[in-house]
């Protein structure tokens, strides 16, 4: 058993889980916004980085890690809410390209603003967990207290979001305004408020993802640090069909593990090209993703 748990393949899987849950959370954030507003939020990675910088920037003032971590969530939510109110709301009902272009502009702007305030050099964040891997006898199990913290945080958050949507009155309102905004409005749901809340939730989730990815041993916060995870998270969500939150999460985890295998067996430079290939192949076979039903278009 020990030999199996410390084998090369299992090590790859365990190593890939951390990246995987991050991709899953980013994908989850994309799906939340896509379902509610039919907008693909290209700025999600940058908004999340902004939230993480706002929260973790407090580390410089000797604020404990836990406070910074917790504060980065409302910071990301605030950025998301502001984006929806100020930038996205005027673009509802406009041609498809307008929100795409606006979100890309926001991505550019936020990364540049972060760079101009905090600089582009990497800021390392050391969470109060050991990054030394557990040992099984003489062999190394590729899990450390830090990675257990990272993975469990992400999974707990995803479950919390799922429970919010599934079991609460608020979640019902959120789902209703995404599926049938007109009917929901007639029944007294504040649809506009729900859309803003959806954006806030999405950016809060993504902020946690940004904190997780930047709290590793060698990784740290950089303004463009979420570009790669955003691309992978988008691929995960698109493979799942951009409609299914659980599909995005599972897809993200699978993608993270796959990337670890590519890094280990082939070449780290080819990770993103390979994942792109997966996306293209899946979408060539099933254009609407793996986890959604084919929608008949009305002419």
């Amino acid at each position: 058993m020990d030999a199996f748990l410390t084998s090369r393949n299992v090590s790859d899987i365990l190593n890939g889980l951390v990246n995987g849950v991050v991709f899953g959370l980013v994908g989850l954030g994309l799906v939340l916004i896509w379902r509610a507003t039919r907008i693909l939020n290209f700025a999600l990675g940058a908004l999340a980085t902004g939230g993480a910088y706002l929260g973790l920037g407090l580390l410089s003032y000797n604020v404990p890690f836990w406070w910074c971590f917790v504060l980065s969530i409302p910071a990301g939510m605030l950025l998301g809410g502001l984006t929806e109110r100020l930038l996205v709301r005027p673009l509802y009902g406009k041609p498809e390209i307008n929100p795409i272009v606006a979100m890309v502009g926001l991505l550019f702007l936020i990364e540049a603003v972060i760079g101009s305030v905090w600089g582009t050099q990497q800021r390392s964040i050391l969470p109060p967990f050991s990054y030394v891997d557990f040992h099984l006898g003489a062999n190394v199990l590729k899990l450390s207290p830090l990675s257990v913290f990272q993975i469990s945080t992400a999974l707990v958050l995803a479950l919390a979001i799922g429970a919010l949507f599934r079991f609460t009155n608020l979640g019902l309102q959120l789902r209703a305004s995404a599926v049938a905004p007109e009917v929901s409005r007639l029944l007294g749901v504040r649809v506009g408020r729900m859309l803003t809340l959806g954006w806030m939730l999405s950016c809060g989730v993504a902020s946690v993802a940004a904190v997780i990815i930047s709290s590793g041993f060698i990784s740290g916060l950089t303004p463009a640090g979420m570009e790669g995870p955003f691309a992978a998270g988008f691929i995960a969500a698109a493979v799942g069909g951009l409609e299914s939150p659980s599909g995005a999460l599972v897809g993200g985890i699978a993608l993270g593990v796959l990337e670890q295998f590519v890094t280990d067996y082939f070449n780290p430079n080819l990770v993103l090209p390979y994942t792109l290939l997966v996306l293209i192949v899946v979408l060539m076979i099933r254009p609407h993703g793996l986890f959604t039903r084919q929608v008949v278009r009305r002419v």
Partner: protein
Amino acid sequence: MSDTPRSTESDPVSSTVQVRRRSAGRTLVRLGQPLATTRARHPVLWRLTTTVIGVSIALVLSGTFSAFTDYLLATGAAMSIVILGLSFLTGFSGQVSLGNGVFFGVGCYAFALWSNHQSNSSIPEDLVVATIAGALAGLVVGLPATRLRGPYLAGMTIAVAISFGFLIDQFSTWTNGDQGINVQGQFTAPGWLAHLIGSSVSSPRATSMWGADIVFVVTGLAFFLMANLFQSRKGRAMRLMRENDVAAELVGVSLPAARVTAFVVSAACAGLGGGLTTLVATTVYGSTFNLALSIEILTLMVIGGIGSLSGSLLGGLFYAYSMTWIAQLISGLGISTSSNLGSQMNNIIFGALLIITVLVAPLGIAGTTRFVISRQLARWRSPN
């Protein structure tokens, strides 16, 4: 020359419409009176004349500018071809690409590698290689476009743009990574040109002017070809596809073929622009081709006006001078260029311009100007 995607002027039926005008309770009906249009009788000849005049003016002016201005304008003209390609893709076939910086990069590398490898190759040959290389990259990226729509496609191209940097690293034996490639055997100006501006053949001014002149001529050629493509049967089919793909399919437009064709044409333009840029810049650095470049190209297209020839030229001009202007702005505001804010000012301004343009004037400079002029003309024609 009409280059708006929504012009109804190319429709022969609507050029002689019934003009119904209500004034003081009476209804005036005029039959068969043609509306004043900008449509020429021989459109191709008209476009050719415009192009030749425009290029001639640029060539004459290039002799009066300094070497640096010539260089700036040449990079701007090369970039305007790239913008035109993206403008065609977005404005005509309705697809958004955030990866045209990749095709631009492929053109740059193809030009540099081919001209270094084939030491006796001519400049036109190198440019053709760059264009073909760009088109091939466009074919590879564009094939999934037969199945993907709007945001899916944009997301895929953004992933392509991000992964291009990794590919450059992976093939560093060819690309030489961040050290970059120098183009060997720089071109020299012919004797008569140096004689004309009264300097020696090897002077930087003659070299710079000759490079700019080559770029201007090729840019004129590219714009002429694209202007014809815009108004051709293919171009009209693509416009229909953008407005309503089901209707396009019903009248016999093959959607997958049209989508891939648009991608290939757009990428060929980007490749040609990359080749021309490498011709005048003579170096290629791997770090140039990041996501920011693709977004800059998108910004320039949106600011100029999507699907517009004049908008693409404006975008190229803006690109040529944006760096100088932003440097002046930074020094004017008293910010150090090495400070965080100074180094990020370029991206802040581009990002903000992109957002402001989408919110305030989504038609861009060219489209908004055209809209304002046509509204004024309509008011002037019917004074009540």
